[in-house]
């Protein structure tokens, strides 16, 4: 029989279906719960999947991976709290859409494009893994540094109101990321003798604080009785024909971004979401409303970060090197089952490749279906009186953060960043560049210093990929900085004749 039929047959078993069902439930719960990530769920689940058959085990773990990627969008859209770091960029337009009374539309679009992102990336995985993985290996420290510098230009595009404040926020994020141990020498920086600070501020605690808790505190501060709560006014669910047309372009662009970022080891859904959002904004006709509830924004963010799934699966299976932290855990399980990831897997066990692809696609379809059917119920939860919502959000954020490290210090960090986030919000300093700085800071510094250790300064410019990317970054910075100035001048000229 052909490997294709073998691969498909392997998953058409009742036990495998049962495993997929379990995976969907665990994954959705974990994704929606702020704090706990897919990595944690897969790691904990792998202790009981060890004794299963390989296909059954893969069914559980891969489905958790997929379902968590859907689940984490929901709190991003409804309560401005990313369920996992991969959905940071979802908050940019998702939450404003919800506030504008389009929560239902945002949820549906998010689920649809997430499915598109995953399936597009799985097509690539099943057809072109080996050559793509070779491309991934081309990204060494100097190339990574160039990618990160290019990504830094996003700081300008996400600071919509004031570029100076946005850049300041970005620098604050970059600086906060230096707390902890130096990545190259291991020296302690800004730890002030506090043991827990040695590993740096917990990234998840900081984003939950800055987004979720800060937004909640702001509501507590400003909410007035008898106020109509726009979120419960759901608006319509399904996009109009016109909206489908509008999201086609950003979805396409973002899928491409997500695929590339996903293949690069060490860059995951969080960076992809931000980059996808930024590129879609640059290409959009409605740039100005990005970040204020633009349907193109949420489509781009979610397509890009979902498309990294197939990308990291590619790196993992075709190189034997985990493409992200979830895959790092899964490689351990795969070896226990006797699956040996690497280029020869695609030659020796083509049916397994088909099985993995089929599992991912099936998990995506099932999760999508559940999401679409269940959405109204999900959003009904927000119809509860505010005191229930506020209480639930607070306790979920606290417990979810605690579970990441079993350490009250992490919970305190989250609360502190909630307060910092509130102060910044009231002062008009945006939180998203801070998070961008937190993600990119360690990558920028460590990769630059690594590349200097290896080749000295010449290494940055005499390699074709890094030289090209650095040139692009310079152009992007100039364009991004000059765009608002040009726009203002144009606006002034347009006004002048009147």
């Amino acid at each position: 029989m052909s490997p294709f039929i073998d691969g498909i047959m392997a998953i058409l078993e009742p036990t495998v279906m049962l495993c997929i069902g379990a995976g969907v439930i665990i994954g959705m719960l974990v994704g929606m719960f702020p704090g706990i990530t897919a990595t944690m769920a897969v790691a904990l689940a792998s202790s009981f999947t060890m004794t299963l058959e390989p296909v059954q085990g893969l069914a559980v773990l891969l489905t958790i991976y997929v379902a968590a990627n859907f689940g984490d969008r929901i709190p991003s859209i409804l309560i401005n709290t990313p369920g996992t770091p991969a959905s940071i960029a979802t908050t940019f337009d998702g939450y404003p859409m919800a506030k504008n009374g389009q929560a239902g539309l945002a949820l549906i679009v998010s689920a649809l494009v997430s499915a598109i992102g995953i399936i597009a990336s799985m097509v690539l995985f099943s057809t072109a893994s080996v050559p793509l993985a070779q491309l991934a290996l081309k990204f060494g420290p100097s190339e990574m540094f160039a990618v990160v510098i290019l990504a830094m230009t996003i700081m300008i595009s996400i600071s919509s109101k004031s570029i100076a404040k946005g850049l300041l926020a970005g620098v604050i994020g970059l600086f906060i990321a230096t707390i902890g141990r130096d990545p190259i020498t291991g020296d302690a920086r800004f730890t002030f003798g506090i043991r827990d600070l040695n590993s740096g501020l917990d990234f998840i605690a900081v984003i939950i604080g800055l987004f979720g808790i800060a937004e909640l505190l702001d509501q507590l501060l400003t909410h007035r009785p008898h106020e109509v709560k726009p979120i419960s006014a759901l608006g319509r669910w399904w996009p109009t024909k016109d909206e489908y047309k509008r999201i086609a372009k950003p979805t396409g662009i973002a899928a491409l971004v997500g695929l590339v970022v996903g293949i690069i080891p060490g860059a995951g859904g969080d960076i992809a979401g931000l980059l996808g959002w930024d590129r879609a904004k640059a290409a959009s006709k409605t740039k100005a409303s990005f970040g204020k509830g633009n349907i193109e924004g949420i489509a781009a963010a979610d397509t890009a970060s979902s498309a990294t799934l197939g990308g990291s699966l590619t790196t993992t299976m075709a190189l034997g090197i985990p493409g992200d932290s979830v895959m790092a855990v899964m490689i351990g399980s795969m070896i226990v089952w006797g699956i040996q990831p690497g280029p020869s897997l695609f030659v020796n066990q083509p049916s397994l490749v088909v099985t993995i692809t089929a599992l991912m696609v099936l998990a995506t379809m099932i999760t999508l279906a559940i999401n679409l059917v269940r959405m109204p119920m999900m959003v009904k939860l927000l119809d509860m009186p505010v005191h229930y919502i506020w209480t639930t959000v607070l306790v979920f954020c606290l417990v979810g953060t605690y579970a990441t490290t079993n350490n009250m210090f992490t919970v305190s960090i989250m609360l502190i960043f909630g307060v910092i986030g509130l102060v910044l919000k009231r002062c008009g300093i945006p939180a998203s560049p801070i998070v961008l700085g937190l993600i990119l800071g360690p990558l920028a510094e460590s990769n630059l210093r690594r590349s200097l250790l290896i080749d000295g300064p010449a290494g940055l410019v005499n390699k074709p990929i890094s030289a090209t990317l650095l040139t692009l970054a310079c152009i992007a910075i100039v364009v991004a900085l000059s765009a608002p100035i040009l726009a203002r001048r144009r606006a002034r000229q347009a006004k002048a004749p009147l």
Partner: protein
Amino acid sequence: MAEQEKLAASSGGVKALPDEPAGDEHQPASPSRRMEIATASVALALALLALVLSRNIHLRMGGGGLDPKWWPTLLSSAAIALSTVLLCFSIFAQTVRRDDLESSHRDGWVRMLSALALSALYVFAWWTTGYLVATALYLVALLWLFGLRSWKGLIIFPLVTTAFIYGLFQILLKVPL
């Protein structure tokens, strides 16, 4: 009486004050030059502090070149430059509009600060008395603070939520709480 409680319950516990127009949906925060100047000044002061701290990082193996001090120094210098620009803007340029923010009010402050204090207390109580008791009490206290006065809600909701979280973590994910 019961009617009134219900009304308070569905409105987040803040009773409409006579001097505040009830039913007004959007009350934007007003722009403030003083706050802009204060923000920029604080940022500048913090950036200077960061620069001093960066220069004082203790190196185990000696420095030179791109040592661990280099990147924080670069960042704090950039922060100094940016906050100086902001300070100039805040003094000379037009004050930024803040109509994307709602204005705060006194009851809001009380509610926000109490919730924060309760959360801090909860973190401490969890650490000393364990998850179950602390969480249930914390939930009751929060609901009361946010204006719920119905006995049924105050008892059932905390119990169900505490149990759900316990089941998810302790039993399903095997993460000890």
